[in-house]
């Protein structure tokens, strides 16, 4: 791509989303779609992130709030089950953490360099409300 000359691309300020013809794209999982190299799905914006979300499945109730609220479609859910975060496209905004209703939260923000295993091992305990 980077060395393509002026006469080697399609005319117009136009980019194709997929390579070739598509069929039932809404019914095709992202990992199975033939994205064009020009599609923004193929570009990582991970380096925009200063803080990252870490997901702990122990407390998740699969309410899908994070999936709905994520502005970058970076919450990966399959069969209505939350399975993780797309770290190539998450920009670290923290909205998923903000909307998570569980106690303790199933998503928390950490510095980008934090170790996931270590943070999961010391996940906060349930916050007991005072009666």
């Amino acid at each position, binding site marked *: 791509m980077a060395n393509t000359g*002026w006469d080697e691309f399609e005319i117009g300020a*136009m*980019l194709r*989303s997929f390579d070739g013809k598509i069929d039932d794209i809404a019914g095709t999982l992202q990992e199975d779609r033939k994205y064009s190299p020009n599609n923004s799905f193929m570009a990582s914006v991970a380096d925009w992130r200063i803080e990252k979300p870490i997901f702990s499945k122990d407390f998740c109730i699969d309410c899908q709030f994070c999936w709905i609220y994520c502005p970058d479609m970076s919450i990966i859910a399959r069969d209505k089950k939350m399975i993780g975060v797309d770290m190539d496209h998450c920009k670290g905004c923290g909205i998923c953490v903000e909307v998570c209703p569980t106690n303790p939260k199933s998503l928390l923000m950490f510095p980008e360099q934090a170790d996931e295993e270590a943070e999961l091992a010391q996940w906060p305990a349930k916050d007991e409300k005072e009666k």
Partner: protein
Amino acid sequence: MAFDKMELRDIEVWDGNFAAAQALRQCQIDVVAAYPITPSTPIVEGYAKFLADGYVEGEFVMVESEHAAMSGCIGAAAAGGRVATATSSQGFALMVETLYQASGMRLPIVLNVVNRALAAPLNVNGDHSDMYLGRDSGWIQLDAYCPQDAYDLNFIAFRVSEDHDVRLPCMVHQDGFMTSHTAQGVKTLTDDEGYNFVGDFKPMNDMLDFEHPVTHGVQTEEDWHFEHKARQHNDLMTKVMPKIQAAFDDFEKLSGRKYNIVENYDMDDADVAVVCMGTSVETAREVATEMRAKGIKAGVVGIRVIRPFPFMQIAEALKGVKAVATLDRSAPGGTVGMLFNEIAGCLYNLDTRPMLSGKIYGLGGRDLTKKHLVDLYTELQANVDAGKITTPLQQFIGVRGPKLSFL
């Protein structure tokens, strides 16, 4: 298609606006997004009436400005429709940002520009200020001299613009009021002849092709912008003129009416010539004939295709001429007129160069009379006789007060 055809007489009495509106009807425009402005209003009004009366199957989109009008046209063209609109003057000026979007996105939109002066002071009459404003925008620009041209050039415009090797938008210019509101005999095409000349619209990378999704109007920075602009310029410089010539040839076969990229009149043995555009070409032709009767070998070069600029054709037309005057109908804003500048560029590398002087005339609809042109040809002949330019290089024609000249 569910619409009625219209029976036209072989010759109809139409002004330039109605002639253009009829051409839009016969080309069966899918979408017209318009914000009407004097003197171009009757073009889109005419299309809207044809639509309301069932003569067109299309969509008229009323918008809140000319910026929105061209934006609507861009969206409709990217979606994959045959698209046109019309504007003038201030409206054209407001469209300028989107003109560059249309050409950069390679969308075949046809814009009828009824040339009018630019404020201030506010003025609704014809000059070429708005036409000049569009000359770097990457559009094809065709110039009509009379209502017949305004009709015919719309068909040419769609034919060329929508060609998949071209895919560049096209303006059809006519002079405000002098052409747009002057009724003349216009030889017509039948609805079938007109439509078949432009043919069915063939979409390219259209957004309504759901099996091949595309994003239009993308951003490129220093990594890609230059290549896109280079491609666009390359296509303007190399692909458009042959397509225009082919369209002119086919149109002549269909209608008997012959158009040329540069309209030369009495140029074969001319000593003196004027280069001009719009309605002035017809006046100059009449005067040139009269000057010939007086023994001055006068000729006229009318520019039919303004962009891409017919550099080589103009050099060819003028190379044997002794004195040439360019007639610019736009205030040059602190330099020589556009035609003077561009034609000087055409002539500079020739072995024999004509003497070149530039005239500014007709601003805000001021008439260019035959007397003005008689005086001009006489002055050019005086230059020839003296062997040098006897006047300043830039002169104003027809302005009141002391004679105004520069350089």
